[in-house]
């Protein structure tokens, strides 16, 4: 008997992997995709690992596919940029065991540095893409994608988004279909992508795409729902939509409209859309981000509304659709304009190991080339100690370019700040760029012993695998030495010790050579981190100078012109005690 369960979209994708008999998963964490791989690792039948980055994960998964297993790699939209190289070529070599890649877009940029529409990748790499619209489809689409991958000899992309990946919904659970490891047959013409072979495969890709396009006209993933409502609008409106946008449309327009719900978003059908358009008076395409379906409609001669009414940035909602398309505004409580509501942006946690570091960086007025992780919050007030943040790993390579053009003195007033997991992901090549090209930039590795922002995943430096098994520790110091950083230019310290941190920073910055400073203190949220101490501020004598608040700890509050510690939030790092000039802060 099948069981219905409430699953997160990402858990449903993982369940789909399990049920499809997937044997191999290799991914790098990235919100909103991370939990797919975490949930997959809970099935003992699936080998699941954290790769150092998405490119490695995709290559490992393709290797597993060529080796005969059903294989998977999951990533966020910007992760697909990193993995794009192998993914494009994977489209050429095709598969042996089914190969599925999930990519989770983040419209609205809840936890990302940019907003991308990954459907462009499907078209650019000529790889078919499915787009589920709820947890139930996350499971069933993922499961079927493997079968289709093998049938058409192509990787399949699954596109999710924050509201799909991180929404709970009911899904029907099935049994696992165990798959045999397929035989590996040497086939250089298919698997060795050198020009002569690639030219042949190029033609094969086009032939395959034509077959899939024909299949798209009648495949089960695309569905027409004609309105049966009696009070339907006089003008028959037909909505073409996919993914989460379809759900917003259904909620906004109910049964009064007809829908063409596309589950296969690349390649798009022609006849199906033409036929649907013929049966309605007005077509509206509702798709978050870019106008991909709309452009296709225009190309095949279907007149539509779409981005003339709706934005190509941010998330949609039923409210936005009602307002932009029907002109209906929400009926809601209005708070008077005189009520000022302070925003609540994310902040470094109380006891965060990065707080002390950024306090010192600010004090020394350094140019800070930043990177992607919790520590990007060091850019926010009151620390405001970051000048640039681009993408994973760019802190180090960007610092190098900055200092080469600005000269050796610049390297004494600047530092690249990168987390431990980000360093493993793509910081190492930047480090090599500096040492190989005789650069003198200073690198600060913020080693909190975990991949923090995405929710504490292991990485090659933590000593544990995704499944929690003990693993060899890839040493950051060892990598630095191997890259050519001199032993005396590698310093390790606790960034919560402000005096020592400042001293080491000043000494290293004065050098005319490349240096690596490793600020090592475990993330305060890790279960293994002790937080049993509490501090308090002696109220007698507090002058209200707010110096203790200059590092922006959320556990310090200011009432009646005096600072005090909110005991429920204090984790006992003791940083504030080092900031108070009157020594009023002590351990309880």
């Amino acid at each position, binding site marked *: 008997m099948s069981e219905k369960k409430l699953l997160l979209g990402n858990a449903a994708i993982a369940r789909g992997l399990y049920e499809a008999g997937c044997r191999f998963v290799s991914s790098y964490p990235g919100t909103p995709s991370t939990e797919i791989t975490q949930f997959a690792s809970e099935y003992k039948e699936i080998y699941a690992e954290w790769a150092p980055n998405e490119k490695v994960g995709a290559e490992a998964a393709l290797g597993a596919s060529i080796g005969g297993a059903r294989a998977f790699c999951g990533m966020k939209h910007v992760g697909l940029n990193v993995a794009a190289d192998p993914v494009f070529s994977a489209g050429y070599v095709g598969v042996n065991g089914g190969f599925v890649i999930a990519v989770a877009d983040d419209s609205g940029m809840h936890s990302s540095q940019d907003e991308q529409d990954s459907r462009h990748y499907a078209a650019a790499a000529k790889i078919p893409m499915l787009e589920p619209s709820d947890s139930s489809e996350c499971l069933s689409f993922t499961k079927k994608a493997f079968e289709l991958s093998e049938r058409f000899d192509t990787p399949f992309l699954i596109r999710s988004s924050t509201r799909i990946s991180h929404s709970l*919904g009911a899904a029907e659970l099935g049994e696992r279909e165990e798959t045999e490891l397929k035989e590996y047959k040497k086939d250089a013409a298919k698997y060795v992508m050198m020009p002569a072979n690639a030219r042949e495969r190029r033609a094969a890709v086009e032939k395959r795409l034509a077959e899939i396009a024909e299949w798209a006209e009648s495949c089960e993933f695309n569905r027409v729902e004609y309105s049966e409502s009696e009070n339907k609008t006089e003008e028959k409106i037909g909505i073409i939509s996919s993914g989460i946008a379809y759900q917003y449309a259904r909620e906004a327009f109910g049964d009064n409209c007809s829908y063409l719900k596309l589950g296969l978003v690349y390649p798009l059908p022609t006849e199906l859309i033409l036929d649907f358009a013929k049966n309605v008076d007005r077509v509206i395409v509702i798709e978050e981000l870019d106008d991909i379906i709309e452009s296709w409609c225009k190309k095949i001669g279907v007149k539509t509304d779409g981005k003339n009414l709706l934005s190509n940035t941010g998330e949609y909602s039923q409210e936005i659709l009602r307002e932009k398309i029907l002109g209906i505004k929400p009926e*809601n409580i209005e708070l008077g304009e005189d009520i000022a509501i302070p925003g609540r942006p994310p902040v470094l946690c109380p006891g965060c190991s990065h707080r002390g570091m950024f306090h010192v960086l600010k004090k020394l007025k350094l140019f800070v080339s930043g990177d992607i992780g919790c520590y990007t919050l060091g850019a926010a007030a009151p620390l405001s100690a970051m000048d640039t943040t681009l993408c994973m790993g760019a802190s180090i390579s960007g610092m190098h370019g900055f200092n080469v053009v600005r000269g050796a003195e610049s390297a004494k007033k600047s530092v690249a700040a990168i987390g431990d997991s980000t360093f493993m992901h793509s910081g190492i090549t930047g480090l090599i760029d500096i040492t190989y090209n005789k650069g003198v930039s200073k690198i600060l590795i913020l080693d909190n012993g975990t991949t923090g922002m995405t929710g504490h995943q292991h990485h090659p430096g933590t000593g544990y695998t995704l499944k929690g098994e003990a693993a060899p520790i890839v040493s950051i110091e060892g990598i630095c030495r191997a890259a050519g950083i001199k032993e005396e230019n590698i310093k390790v310290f606790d960034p919560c010790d402000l005096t020592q941190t400042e001293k080491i920073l000043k000494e290293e910055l004065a050098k005319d050579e490349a240096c690596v400073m490793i600020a090592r203190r475990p993330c305060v949220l890790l279960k293994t981190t002790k937080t049993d101490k509490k501090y308090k501020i002696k109220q007698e004598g507090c002058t209200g100078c707010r110096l203790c608040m200059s590092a922006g700890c959320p556990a310090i509050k200011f009432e009646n012109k005096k600072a005090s510690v909110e005991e429920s939030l204090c984790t006992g790092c003791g940083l504030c005690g080092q900031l108070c000039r009157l020594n009023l802060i002590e351990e309880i």
Partner: protein
Amino acid sequence: MNTKVTNMMMVGVGGQGSLLASRILGGVALKLNYDVKASEVHGMSQRGGSVVTYLKYGEKVYSPVICRGEADFILAFEQLEALRWLPYLKKNGVIIMSTHKVNPAPVITGAMEYPKDISKTIENTGIRLIEADAFSLAVQAGTDKAANVVIIGILAKLMKDEIDKDIYIDVLREQINPRFFDANLAAFNSGYNFI
């Protein structure tokens, strides 16, 4: 067919347990054979930011999010967040608010003041507000982590004609680590008996 969908929002500060609250209430709705959707917040916003979780159930639920003027209930684990999300409540909706306060960054840096008399501001809009010192009630029940469960207890009382109390308790038993179940049950009951 009853097309009514019940919309609930859980609002608070990252780390206050709104995810667990939505999973408990989602579990309750699923036990009643409703279609359920909930939208959660993961990633950067969880680091002390404003966090909102949506939970919707009914015969058929499409969108997982709730927009302005759509929520039947708002469960607020922090006062300022209650005020921030108030426009999402239906005009005949109910807001249950923990009196707990957490200063946001602009207040910590001194750039802005924490709004005064939030409960009065909310009541002035004509909305039904239920205030509780959920944090203290949870501490009395034996765990400072269960303020969210106290608030769920209050909601359960409000909805007692629609949903049996024991269903919540069954879900708590399924979802809460057995070591903490007794304290959470006590927290739930203290909320249930609060009004």
